[in-house]
């Protein structure tokens, strides 16, 4: 009989009664055929594979990561509490050593959700990986975390949340932003002045196939992970690089995803996108689960799988090799890059416009970070959106130095009712979340 080599946990939450709207790709039917395939293959009967019922996250779990405008109850639906909860359940089971690895096969996804949330963008409201990771940091003292985002879309939300965190390595592999939503994720995006180099982006050209993805994992991701030495590896496991996905242009396969999973050896995988619900997801998910469990997946394939038909051109290969060299050079020189970024005074500022495509909201953010050699730095975000909200959000990082902590509280205390409707403070060292409503 089948016996998993690695004790593997699974939260399967297809949310069969939840959709963004009836014909939206993120709809009830999305994981139906995946369920059929996983059930028919008898995967849940395999010795050493355990299915868990998802817990719900708490509002505190959400507030630890996000500034929800005006508040969490307006941003979260029941399904978000469960999908983030599913990730949290798997994370806890891994850290309790109940399982060696786990996969949260949940929906809705989360990697386009930024630290500030005015609404839904890229089908995401809250960042379920970040909610899980920050919970694990508080509950289990996990320090260094690596997130490898293999969704076809740039994980811009996760990048935003960890932009200033030197203890979280975020690597996103995705279809080139010039050809796909959200249009970001270029190699030059490396993180803020206190964390330059712990954000890495590997944009791949359209039509990248198995060869290109596995090249990127073997030659870029694995060596960087080796250097970074994370305590925990999280895979944002989007499945929309598949050759049959309706909203992307890549040529990845179920076998390729399983191979990627074997190479990456993530402790935790969390489902992100993937909208080829009949032709890809059933096979990709079966492959990923078997690969995590250390079982043979060589006979898992799509009915129409033809490696010759999806093989990438030599031009694509050359382009990926160039990108790889560029990313590795950034990684190698990260200390110098950081030093250079830190030389322009005590504060560093940037202004951004953010569009929430799913909810049609426009936001303007003025972000100020305290340049700090001792911690991630106090962060002040002045954000307004065309929903009429104008608020101030202050983040004091988990390992904040005394000065950054004081700075954070000073920003919070000094915020004036003349400028803002509300002020929020994330005091991570105390795991305390404050807000003032001036109305």
């Amino acid at each position, binding site marked *: 009989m089948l016996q998993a080599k690695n004790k593997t946990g699974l939260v399967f939450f297809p949310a069969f009664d939840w959709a963004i709207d009836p*014909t939206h790709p993120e709809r*009830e039917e999305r994981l*139906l055929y995946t369920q059929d395939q996983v059930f028919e293959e008898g995967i849940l009967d395999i010795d050493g594979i355990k299915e868990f*019922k998802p817990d719900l996250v708490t509002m505190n779990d959400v507030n630890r990561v996000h500034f929800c405008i005006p508040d969490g109850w307006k941003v979260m639906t029941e399904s978000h509490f469960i999908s983030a909860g599913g990730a949290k359940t798997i994370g806890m089971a891994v850290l309790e050593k109940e399982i060696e690895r786990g996969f949260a096969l949940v929906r809705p996804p989360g990697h386009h959700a930024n630290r500030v949330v005015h609404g839904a963008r890229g089908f995401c409201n809250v960042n379920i990986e970040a909610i899980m990771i920050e919970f694990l940091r508080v509950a289990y003292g996990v320090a260094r975390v690596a997130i490898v985002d293999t969704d076809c879309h740039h994980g811009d939300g996760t990048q935003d949340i960890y932009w200033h965190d030197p203890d979280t390595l975020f690597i996103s592999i995705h279809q080139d932003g010039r050809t796909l939503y959200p249009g970001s994720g270029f190699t030059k995006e490396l993180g803020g002045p206190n964390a330059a180099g712990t954000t890495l982006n590997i944009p791949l050209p359209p039509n990248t196939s198995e060869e290109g993805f596995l090249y990127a994992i073997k030659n870029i991701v694995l060596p960087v992970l080796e250097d970074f030495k994370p305590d925990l590896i999280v895979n944002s496991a989007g499945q929309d690089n598949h050759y049959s996905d309706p909203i992307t242009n890549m040529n990845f396969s179920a076998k390729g995803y399983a191979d990627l999973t074997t190479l990456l050896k993530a402790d935790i995988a969390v489902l992100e996108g993937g909208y080829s619900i009949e032709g890809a997801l*059933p096979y990709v998910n079966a492959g990923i689960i078997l690969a995590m469990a250390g079982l043979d997946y060589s006979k898992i394939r799509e009915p129409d799988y033809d490696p010759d038909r999806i093989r990438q051109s030599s031009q694509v290969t050359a382009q990926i090799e160039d990108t790889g060299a560029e990313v590795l050079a950034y990684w190698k020189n990260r200390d110098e890059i950081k030093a250079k970024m830190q030389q322009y005074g005590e504060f560093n500022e940037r202004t951004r416009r953010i569009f929430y495509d799913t909810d049609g909201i426009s936001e303007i953010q003025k972000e100020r970070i305290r340049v700090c050699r001792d911690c991630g730095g106090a962060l002040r975000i002045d954000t307004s959106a065309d929903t009429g909200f104008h608020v101030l959000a202050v983040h004091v990082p988990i390992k904040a130095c005394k000065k950054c902590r004081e700075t954070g509280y000073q920003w919070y205390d000094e915020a004036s009712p003349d400028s803002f409707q509300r002020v929020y403070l994330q005091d991570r060292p105390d795991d305390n979340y404050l807000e003032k409503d001036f109305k």
Partner: protein
Amino acid sequence: MIIGLDVGGTHTDVVLLDKQGLIRGIKVHTDASDLFSTVLLGLEKITQNVDPDLIKRVVLSTTLTTNSIVQGKTPEVGMIVSSGPGIDPDLYKTNPHYFTVSGSIDHQGRTIEPIDHNEIREIGKQLKADGIKLAGVVGKFSARNPSHEMEINQILADDLDHIFLGHRVSGNLNFPRRIATTFLNASVYPTHKNFFQAVKQSLDKKGLKVPIHILKADGGTMSFASSIDFPGQTILSGPAASVMGAIAFAPPDEDVIVMDIGGTTTDIAVLINQAPLLDPLGIELGGYKTLIRSLKTRSIAIGGDSRVQTSNGDLKIGPERLDFAMAYGGKSPTPTDALVVIENIQNCDMNRARAGIESIAMETGTSIEETALNIFDQTCQNILSEARNMITEVNSKPVYTVHELQEGYRVNPKKILVLGGPAPYFARYLEKISEFDVRAIPGWKVANAIGAALARTTCEVTLFADTSRGILMAPEEKFEESITKEFLREDAVNKAYDLLKQKAIEKGASTEDLEMELLEDLQFNMVRGFSTIGKNIRIKAQVKPGLIHRYESVAQNMSPHSSGSDEG
């Protein structure tokens, strides 16, 4: 009048009931090497001085198929398995004549690769040459499209006596379990058929021309005729008999734990409003995970005859059973011996019971009385903790909708019913050490046979519709129909109930006992591109396990009301 008979490991219990209650209950010794004689003896004794014309129903629960599987006493069969891509089907090999063949169907029931007729013909020749008469044919996703299994069946029909098709065992998706279940059905077919044919003939000769019903693992019954193709459903009906026996004494609208405390094991089950909780997929036996519907039971290796030992001064109860309690001629101390000492039970060998407990007392450094109490306490504590674990497990079963996760029913029992035993002693002590209200079931000595006698016919139907392709099907019921785009979920529910009703009556149900309910009721808009092309509807309905009508009063009349009991 109704006869219920339950074959147990050591005793076979038989009861005779009528609408006023229990007429009599007897026990006969089980001869495991000759179950036929055991069953006949039991039936003979219970019908003594009874007019055969008054007997309307006989329900049998036997260990026949269970034993033949566990002991491996089944004939070699052929297994033909068509998988296509996926986990290597050779990993599920059940027996030497196991053939994996070409052919593939996807999750929507679409053919991806056809069957290779020549390959099947060759296998047919080989099976014939090897003298194999029975075979199972199983395809992946055959519950969505049975055509490949039917094709193979047709090709092999002339080479074999009987072929079992995977899509007929269950509408549930689980290929490895479908293989195991089909294999078990084929393997126990001759044993089951010959046995019950012989029983039927003997009863006919005695003028007892009543339909025989057989108890299944899900606590329901089926007629002998309808059991022939699905003999696997009769495995492990013993625990089901006890649980059904408890139902007569369970309060309505409450969650109840049932404990059947035997010599070797204790079986724990859960009742919700007088209906037993079912296992979501199916029973597991002898290393086979199956799609055979069964009650959700948890069996622990602790019983009255469990061996008591010490390790580093700590008590260890079970898991092995050597033989009987010392008070009844056994060789090593048991919880029953502890009970004999505590309760000063007569009609057994008190000296030997005390001697047994003393041997433990010397190790633990406590008095005989204290040791006996400790042994019994630990036995009860272990059983209770297992019951609590079971409730936790039931409540942490994964669900797949937001609604179920938020509003799903949580089992919260406040009452325990005990049978087996000696039940009254256990009940009293369990109540003392727990938060539960604990009762011994009246007539606990024959409650299992009463459960068999009164169990109603159960079955399940799984219906699948895809309006984009115009398909409505329930392959398990050999049902397929074309539908239009306007087909609704309500139409599917009605159809499922029609099919269920028809199936239940074929299997021996009476129309007044058709308590039907939906187990699954899902409808999905199928969207391709950005437009809705149809609906994917999935309905599962069952006849709930429970007791037949008009016999509710049995619970109130447990003292035999005529021609007294001669319980051993």
